[in-house]
């Protein structure tokens, strides 16, 4: 292992993390809810009365975030190495997996670890380990 110093952005990433933490803090204190994105999105597929608007509003905020930054930061369209087939398989796995495991990087990784939940710690170790294994196979075994 070597450290990729050219791409390492500790300051910006820490700032981003603090903003994510602040958003999660606001959500649990003001709205009384967990900022778990797979749960908020997946819950739309299980409609209940009075449960729709906050989900749509949260997701809308998430999607317009790059537009809100347009006046200050030049837009960046990320280059994505994965081809269409890989993206489809990956998307299906993320969709099924986050719902079956009841959470993703935000719900288990940020909110769950912040609540000191052993359940979320197990989930986070599992998806991080699996993510590292998948990258190892794709980058170092198949490539």
């Amino acid at each position, binding site marked *: 292992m070597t450290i990729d110093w050219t791409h390492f952005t500790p300051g910006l990433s820490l700032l981003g993390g603090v903003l994510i*933490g602040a958003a999660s803090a606001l959500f649990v204190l003001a709205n009384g809810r967990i900022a778990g994105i797979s749960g908020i999105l997946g819950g739309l597929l299980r409609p209940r009365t009075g449960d729709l608007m906050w989900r749509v509003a*949260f997701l809308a905020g*998430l999607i317009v975030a790059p537009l809100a930054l347009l006046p200050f930061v030049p837009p960046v369209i990320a280059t994505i190495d994965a081809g269409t087939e890989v993206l489809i398989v990956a998307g299906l796995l993320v969709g099924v997996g986050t719902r079956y495991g009841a959470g993703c990087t935000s719900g288990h990784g940020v909110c769950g670890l912040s609540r000191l939940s*052993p359940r979320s710690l197990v989930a986070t170790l599992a998806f991080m380990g699996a993510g590292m294994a998948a990258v*190892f196979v794709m980058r170092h075994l198949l490539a």
Partner: protein
Amino acid sequence: MKKHIDTLSAFLVGLIFGIGLIFGGMTDPAKVVGFLDIAGNWDPSLAFVMGGAILVGVVAFRFARQRTSSFIGGAMHLPTSSDIDRRLVIGSLLFGVGWGMAGFCPGPALTSLGTGNPKAVIFVLAMVAGMALFEFADRFWHQPRRAGAM
């Protein structure tokens, strides 16, 4: 009125969360894969994203635990499950494999929709299809058990 404030607050939370994801580098799949690639040229940045978020989160959730209602005046919807079961582990493993393959997890994928990235659109459509597949399977498998409980 309370409902409108709830909706507005949820929008602001989503917006701040999304801006955090962009600053943190989470919306750049190459950076995410760089973090997961511990055997290669490792970029530890995303550990700082998680660390920063949890630093703030720990304080907020400690405070939230003592409250019986939200600031807006609604109920506290905090998770009640503490089960470490097969669903949790298998689901998280499947999610991790998909995360590593594409470099996208749900939040950053949605935020990337706002940049008009066509590859993010493909990923999000597949992810929603996966969630719908789960809903269908979950209902199908749990139907007999629910009926039996009656």
